[in-house]
């Protein structure tokens, strides 16, 4: 399953990051952050080729020996990054896509809370719960 889930704001500031127990936290933070450049590239590349599907899910951004990094971007310029163990071959592309869509829904609910100030770190209990269920595969 996922080892890291991260939500990154419009100006590339992290809004939320979850790292699995016993994982190298700093390294994963670094990977999630590096992924932003790849996301940026993918987004602007698609814009130049008309007729291309402009799907929110961006697919596999890159893979190292240890990890696979996947990306997703919303129309509101929020980026989601999910990192999985490279050894994990049971997760199919479609399942990753579904995880992103769920994450997107959960994020949308956070924004719709009238007391949440957009751009601030996410401290929602519901969101925590949701991410917990997401990474546990429920």
């Amino acid at each position, binding site marked *: 399953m996922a080892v890291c889930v991260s939500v990154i704001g419009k100006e590339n500031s992290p809004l939320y990051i979850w790292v699995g127990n016993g994982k190298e936290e700093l390294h994963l933070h670094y990977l999630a952050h590096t992924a932003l450049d790849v996301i940026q590239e993918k987004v602007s590349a698609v814009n130049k080729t008309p007729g291309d599907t402009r799907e929110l899910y961006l697919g596999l951004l890159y893979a190292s020996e240890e990890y696979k990094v996947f990306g997703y971007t919303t129309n509101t310029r929020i980026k989601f990054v999910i990192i999985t163990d490279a050894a994990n071959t049971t997760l199919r592309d479609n399942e990753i896509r*579904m995880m992103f*869509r*769920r994450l997107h*829904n959960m994020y949308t*609910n*956070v924004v*719709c*809370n*009238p*007391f*949440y100030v957009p751009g601030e770190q996410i401290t*929602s*209990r*519901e969101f925590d719960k949701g991410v917990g269920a997401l990474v546990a595969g429920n």
Partner: protein
Amino acid sequence: MSRQSMRSNDPKKVSGELFTLTYGSLVAQLLKDYENVDDVNRQLERMGYNIGMRLIEDFLARANPGRCYDLRDTADKIQQAFKLYLGVSPSIGSWSPGGDEFSVVLETNPLAEFVELPDHCLSLRYSNILAGVIPPISHLRILAHLPRERWKSLLTGLRKDIECSSIVYSHLEVEKGMFNE
């Protein structure tokens, strides 16, 4: 909830969400305008009352709900109005032995769908507008058909509506004997 239904852009649901979000912005504005949370609660109830006054006209025109002969009829109409305007059916229950008090309970509260109250306003009755809406809609029905009815409505408002998954508890009291006139 299936993922499909979570993501559907059903126009009915979107209209409901638009209302929910607008309401959220209004509550946030009131919290900015008033220092005291109790004042916000009162203001919300007052707004609910005004909405109730408009809503009853709309309801009569739209749904032609028919006459109310007693408080049980009234309770039915309240239920019907919630279904029509908020898309949720509250359950009516906890009738008092004298049949002059009842509760309206919402299992899911569309107003509070996305709300997580910050710690500094836990005494906010977020959905108090609903408490305000009920008296005019029930009130007017009765007055319209029983003109001599003297009718006292008493509302205890919403109890902890966020924490215990959105329960609306409202409570109406009618002075006894008036129905027989």
